[in-house]
């Protein structure tokens, strides 16, 4: 019996009871639909995550100062100041896998223009190479400040789109003066739009200035205090302790030094520190090498012995990428499990209805055998019937799942991505379900005795 005739016979048989066929395949429809929708939505969000990681600079390696600890209490990252501008220069010089680097001094304070003000989520003191590291080379207006500006601690800055919108309201900011802590800065450029990062924070809410300017003119009094009203005349060169975080409840751990004691034990003159060093590996494959090289360089510069802990922390995006994509992968896998269970249930439904069908059509089977159908012809006919049933269900499921993910895209604005692989897999899986769960009923049909089948009432 030719295969297309078998398929036609199967379709005729299914057409006899379309409602039953529909209900039977519901499990497959839902299972396949779920798989397709999940794959499309899952793929969409993982590529959205990838895109947003790329927008943060996928090859970025962040070097943070180490943690201070006192009596088992850790003060968290950045609580000691161990990174210097010289470290940054050394990294650039000595680490071949690092393609660019930028020092970072952070501040958080009010920016004022005319009668408007705004506290940007980041005020970054850095060098022009920051834009290179962050892969943020496109400016929407003006130009980047120069290395000379950094050297001279010139009062120039660049603004992110959000800041421009909040302060200037349609005016062009280039050439205008803004004030930060009563220091006036000239705006030289406006950064291109970058959008939110994968954590959802707005990357355009930023002000960039030479790090020297921020360090010496602004951050001296704002580094540890974001609240300007309570800022005291501290300098950033003091070691940050818990008591400084809560100025209202000052609590000294040690007896306060008297003037004479201080004079007897002079504090070593501290170097200028920076808050972070942002570096970029040449390629994402070189990230591990770059980290190794940076670690070696910094250990040597900070004179850390073999058995001592590092006084700095290195973070890179691969960890974050991995974490995020493993989260989405976990979700996708969980949903795939649900879909597989649904397919299993659907398969059992198919098996059930095929057994009913075999019983109902016993006389037909007997007749077909009487006119010359061999056992394998009968087996094939019922197998094809169940595969056709499953494929029809799978097709409906693909349409349903695709439609569902398109609805999600339209109404929830979730990123979705078509997944031809999932569609191919769905077709294969539904055919497999048809074969696996249709086999037993088909086998039962093929084993019928022609006379008994003909006599069956």
């Amino acid at each position, binding site marked *: *019996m*030719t295969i297309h005739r078998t398929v036609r016979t199967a379709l*005729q048989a299914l057409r006899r009871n379309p409602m039953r066929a529909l209900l039977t395949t519901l499990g497959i429809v839902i299972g396949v639909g779920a798989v397709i929708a999940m794959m499309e939505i899952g793929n969409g969000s993982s590529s959205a995550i990838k895109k947003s990681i790329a927008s943060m600079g996928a090859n970025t390696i962040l070097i943070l100062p180490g943690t201070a600890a006192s009596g088992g209490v850790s003060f968290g990252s950045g609580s000691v100041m161990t990174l210097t501008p010289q470290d940054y220069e050394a990294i650039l010089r000595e680490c071949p896998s690092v393609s660019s680097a930028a020092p970072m001094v952070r501040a958080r304070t009010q920016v004022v223009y005319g009668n408007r003000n705004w506290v940007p989520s980041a005020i970054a003191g850095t060098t022009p190479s920051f834009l290179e590291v962050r892969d943020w080379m496109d400016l929407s207006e003006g130009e980047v400040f120069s290395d000379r500006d950094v050297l001279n601690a010139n009062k120039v800055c660049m603004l992110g789109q959000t800041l421009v919108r909040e302060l200037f309201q349609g005016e062009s900011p280039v050439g205008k003066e803004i004030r930060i802590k009563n220091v006036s800065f000239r705006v030289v450029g406006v950064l291109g739009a970058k959008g939110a990062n994968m954590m959802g924070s707005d990357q355009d809410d930023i002000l960039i200035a030479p790090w020297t300017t921020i360090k010496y003119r602004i951050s001296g009094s704002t580094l540890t205090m974001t609240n300007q009203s309570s800022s005291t005349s501290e300098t950033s060169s003091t070691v940050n302790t818990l008591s400084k975080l809560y100025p209202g409840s000052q609590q000294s751990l040690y007896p306060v030094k008297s003037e004479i004691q201080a004079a007897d034990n002079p504090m070593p003159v501290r170097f200028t520190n920076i808050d972070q060093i942002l570096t970029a590996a040449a390629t994402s494959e070189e990230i591990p090498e770059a980290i190794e090289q940076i670690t070696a360089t910094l250990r040597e510069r900070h004179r850390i012995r073999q058995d001592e802990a590092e006084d700095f922390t290195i973070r890179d995006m691969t960890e974050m990428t991995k974490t995020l994509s493993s989260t989405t992968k976990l979700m996708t896998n969980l949903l795939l499990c649900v879909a597989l269970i649904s397919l299993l249930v659907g398969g059992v439904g198919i098996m059930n209805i095929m057994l009913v069908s075999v019983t109902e059509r016993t006389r037909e089977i007997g007749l077909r055998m009487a006119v010359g*159908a*061999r056992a394998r012809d009968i087996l094939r006919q019922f197998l094809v019937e169940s595969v056709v049933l499953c494929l029809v269900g799978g097709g409906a499921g693909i349409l349903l799942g695709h439609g569902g993910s398109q609805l999600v895209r339209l109404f929830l604005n979730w990123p979705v991505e078509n997944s031809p692989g999932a569609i191919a897999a769905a077709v294969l899986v539904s055919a497999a379900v048809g074969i696996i769960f249709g086999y037993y009923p088909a086998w039962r049909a093929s084993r019928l005795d022609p006379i008994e089948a003909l006599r069956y009432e």
Partner: protein
Amino acid sequence: MALIELKQIFKTYHIGNMRVPVLKGVSLQIAAGELVALMGTSGSGKSTLMNILGCLDRPTSGEYWLNQKEVGRFSADDRANLRNRSMGFVFQSFNLLARASALENVIMPLSYATDTISDREARRRGREMLGRVGLDDRLDHEPSQLSGGQQQRVAIARALINRPPVLFADEPTGNLDSNTSSEVLRMFQELNREDGITIILVTHDPMVAQHADRIIRISDGVIVDDVGYRIEQKPQAVIAGRISDSGDIS
């Protein structure tokens, strides 16, 4: 030479531990081109014998020779092929596919033929066959839209679609009134005379049996009477030639 030869056929059913002997040593010969009626009381074993003759069932012991081949020892697949190519069946209860048209019913056995023919050729042959049984105007009717006699004629057309040399009919008129009965029987006679098809039909109706050339009576699993033309007396050389020419019996 006999087309069909049964030698000491026994058939015993087993129900639990009980042995139910149904056929108790049946021997007979049927030549090509005969129209034989098999008669007997209810439960005498006519259908059982028919099933063995039609290769739907195997005897418990004994030999069944069909065209010089011992088909009693054939495998299930070989018997299926034999049924497809060399035998036609007409059942008392028509046994048509309910939701299929007359034409589809008639060409159904062609799907199982080993030498597959194209769909168009199959439909052409189906139409021709339905024409033979006088149903050219009922091609697309489903069985439920046909009268009993018409349904049986569709069944006959289906039995003949592969041009088998032998036709078996188990009570073919059992569900028909006397008018349609004789209509069907006339058709059998015509097929027998004009096409030389060997026909074996089971009946317990003497009126039906009268249409046959030869009447075999069976009672309690043995042949008790065999009335009619002897093999040698039937001038059917033409028919025997036709059968061996087409080489239908494998």
